[in-house]
């Protein structure tokens, strides 16, 4: 049973220092921006590695919602729903 608005976030190796080594954690929100804010609240410091001060995703970071790069969707404003999978990968380019 998936709680409404709870998504699974896939954490890359260099950010697992913030999640106690966990590769997959839960966070909630209805957009990528809110999910990242919640992630940052749960794991202090992690959000600063992913976002600029203005909340936009850093240009070398790719965020995926169910495998789709949010840059091709609505960026940080991309909507998410309960059960979605949000992936964070440092851009070794496109990552398709």
């Amino acid at each position: 049973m998936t709680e409404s608005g709870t998504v699974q976030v896939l954490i890359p190796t260099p950010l697992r220092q913030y999640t106690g080594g966990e590769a997959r954690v839960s966070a909630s929100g209805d957009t990528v921006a809110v999910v990242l804010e919640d992630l940052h609240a749960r794991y202090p410091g992690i959000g600063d590695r992913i976002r600029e001060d203005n909340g936009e995703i850093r240009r070398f970071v790719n965020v995926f919602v169910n495998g789709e790069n949010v840059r091709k969707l609505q960026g940080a404003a991309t909507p998410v729903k309960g059960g979605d999978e949000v992936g964070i990968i440092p851009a070794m380019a496109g990552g398709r």
Partner: protein
Amino acid sequence: MLASIAVVRAIGNTPLLRLGRFARDAGLPDTVDLWLKAEWANPGGSVKDRPALGIVRSALASGQLGEGKALIDSTSGNTGIAYAMLGAAIGFPVHLVVPGSASIERKQILAAYGATIVESDPYDGSDGAIRLVRELVAADPDRYWYADQYGHPANPAAHLATTGPEVWSQTEGRITHFVAGLGTTGTLMGTGRFLKGKNPSVQLVGVQPAESFHGIEGLKHLPTAITPPIYDDCVPDRQIGVDTDEAFDVARALARVEGLFVGPSTGAALVAAVEMGKEALTSSEPAVIVAIGCDNGSKYLSTGLWGTEG
């Protein structure tokens, strides 16, 4: 046998380019000479042609490669391209473990040379690729020869034998600083040892991403990564950490002020080179700084690094 192969003959002897306008824009005076070694001029398009050839040559000579064995290694791209090129030209199968996050351009280039690609978990980065290749080799040791670019002595040896002498003669022995990004660390280990042998006062500068979570493909944040067995921390005189955004900005600037379209790791090396130049300003000695330009920018187009956004 190798000496008759066209791409083998084309490896090395790359140009050394003086960055006059870029250096002036960065605030460096005429007493600081800034040079970039154009490693993208190698036939496989990167500095990695040198260690890949050294590793392959050594494996062919010792008989480790041959009798249908496939060369296998983990690579974020450039070394894989070099192996794939050599495998096609010399005639041995090449299998590459590439992080699933590697750029689509790189996978397409590898496929063009006929290499077999195995993707490792994109969330585990290049260390995940290293672990996967070790598992594959352990499971089927008769099928594969593990080239192990991070641990093979032929990697730094190739730079000791070629990159070092080229830089020394191209600067007529005037080099004061050698700046190279650290990935396998082979470039700095080999070239650095050669240059120190010629002149112990040459400063060897290693360039790393400033943080573990970064976007400078090909470079490693050594404090948090698997340490390459060929790395000796006594070799670098200096370590400089470079921010991904700075590396991208300098790569973009170089295209626009020098007409040189380089990749992010070259941008990172130049950030460090400029920092060395600014330090040299405070002494009255002239500085001749050589940075390694690992590859050009074409394999990074899908990053948006040269997007039209600004």
